[in-house]
């Protein structure tokens, strides 16, 4: 295998475990250690309780989740969780979420002198109250957020984009202009499920994010479409469950891939996909 790098950060293989689907990297460490990298659950400035139950709803070849960024906040993350992650033998990428450039700046600042390997700017979480306020749907806001983080840190920055109701090429360009080192495409799609018995939304968070094999053809399209139009390392994400899927994403132009929902079905999915990928490559 040729070396995979984003700037000076090397990945031992193209597989990264996606945010929100592998805790903070503190569980199944033997799996995490063999991956190219692991992205933590989204961290916010203040602690967040997350949404009420139910948070998971199964759909055709996919899942809706409305976890809602449950996390202890950046301070507790740094003091309680990060020390546990010291022994991780893989790239540790911290996924950060906020409502404004200021919040993102503060998050980056707090994490700057920790030993993490990269930041993933999450401006694409669909589990926010007003879907129209998603930063990743606004190229100007996207620019501002990435710029604020870029000014604050020398760490690798990955900007995680949405393809909900916005052309991701436009926000990719904004993130590029603001100095991101890579982009991740895509976060979950908007989704909802209604309970036909009660007439009400099924999920505690009302709407949710759609992920899993169901979204793969669309997510792959986004990667293929953006990759052919912009020079920026892309981390493909969406519906990967097999080594074949990984190969498709690499063909589409992504440098790395993130594996999300597959971990929910099977926490060893990353390992199994890696083994199969190595086998296919002979």
């Amino acid at each position, binding site marked *: 295998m040729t070396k995979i790098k984003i700037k000076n950060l090397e990945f031992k293989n193209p597989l990264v475990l996606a945010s929100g689907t592998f*805790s903070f990297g503190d569980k199944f460490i033997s799996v995490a250690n063999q991956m190219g990298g692991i992205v933590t659950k989204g961290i916010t400035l203040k602690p967040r*309780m997350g949404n009420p139950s139910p948070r*998971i709803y199964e759909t055709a*070849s996919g899942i809706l989740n409305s976890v809602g960024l449950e996390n202890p906040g950046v301070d507790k993350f740094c003091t309680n969780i990060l020390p546990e992650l010291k022994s991780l033998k893989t790239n540790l990428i911290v996924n950060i979420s906020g409502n404004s450039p200021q919040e993102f700046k503060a998050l980056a600042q707090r994490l700057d002198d920790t030993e993490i390997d990269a930041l993933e700017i999450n401006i694409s979480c669909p589990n926010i109250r007003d879907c129209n306020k998603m930063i990743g749907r606004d190229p100007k806001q996207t620019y501002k957020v990435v710029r604020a983080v870029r000014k604050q840190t020398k760490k690798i920055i990955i900007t995680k984009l949405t393809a909900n109701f916005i052309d991701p090429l436009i926000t990719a360009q904004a993130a590029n202009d603001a100095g991101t080192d890579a982009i991740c495409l895509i976060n979950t799609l908007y989704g909802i499920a209604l309970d036909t018995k009660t007439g009400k939304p099924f999920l505690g968070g009302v709407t949710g994010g759609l992920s899993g*094999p169901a979204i793969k053809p669309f997510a792959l399209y986004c990667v293929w479409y953006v990759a052919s139009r912009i020079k920026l390392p892309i981390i493909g994400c969406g519906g990967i469950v097999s080594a074949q899927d990984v190969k498709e994403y690499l063909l589409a132009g992504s440098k790395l891939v993130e594996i999300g929902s597959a971990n929910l079905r*099977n926490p060893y999915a990353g390992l199994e996909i890696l083994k199969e990928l190595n086998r296919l490559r002979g």
Partner: protein
Amino acid sequence: MIRKQAVVYGKEEIGPGIYSMWLKCPQIARTAKPGQFVQIAVNDSYEPFLSRPLSIADTTNNTIRIIYRVIGKGTEILKAKKDGETLLILGPLGKAITPVKNKNIVLCAGGLGIAPLLYLAKNLKKNNNLILFYGARNESELILLKEFKPLCDKIFLSTDDGSKGRKGFVTDILFSAHDILANAYCLYIAGPSEMIKKISNYKFRLSHLKLFGFLEERMGCGCGICFGCAVKKRGNGYLRVCTDGPVFDLSKVAL
């Protein structure tokens, strides 16, 4: 915790649409404890996508037993499994129940809640006195009675239609058994969430009585990595059913 291919055997229909089967999987069987569960990937395709959580209803040295009601896609596929076929299972999952000694313990089951209580009862039997309150829709759904007979000092039954035991809900017979509860150390409750909630919110006026509930919630991973299975803490925040439970001290959660 481990993920292994397990071989199905001894599948039987033990009630209307209710199946029992054994899964041969020594590594899981040997470490399993009452209160725990497994996640079963019902097929190799990705539809349904998620694994299914099912309680460990019993174990032998090499095998675990599961008991399930067929309600949807996943359990339909389980029902179609034949002896000798395999299933990928992840487990044991969740917290083990801490064993106690020399106590009077009350078990209260509604419907399929009886499944995890079987394994618990077998475990507690040796060193404690057990009393079971058990309700189901009708007589044919009162499963596992023969197995509980030798384990319990007393068994009180109810059915919604009165076809066996007292007519009504199991909570009716439980709440009217004040003397038994007054002498009990704790109460293990498994069944529909409405039932657990009702008992949890009931004014027993028995401050010593500990209430433990087997909670169910929609799960993503079943193993603590997705934060999908939230149950509200008393006070603020959430606990995870899959790693903080599934059995909870009900004084700690807000149902």
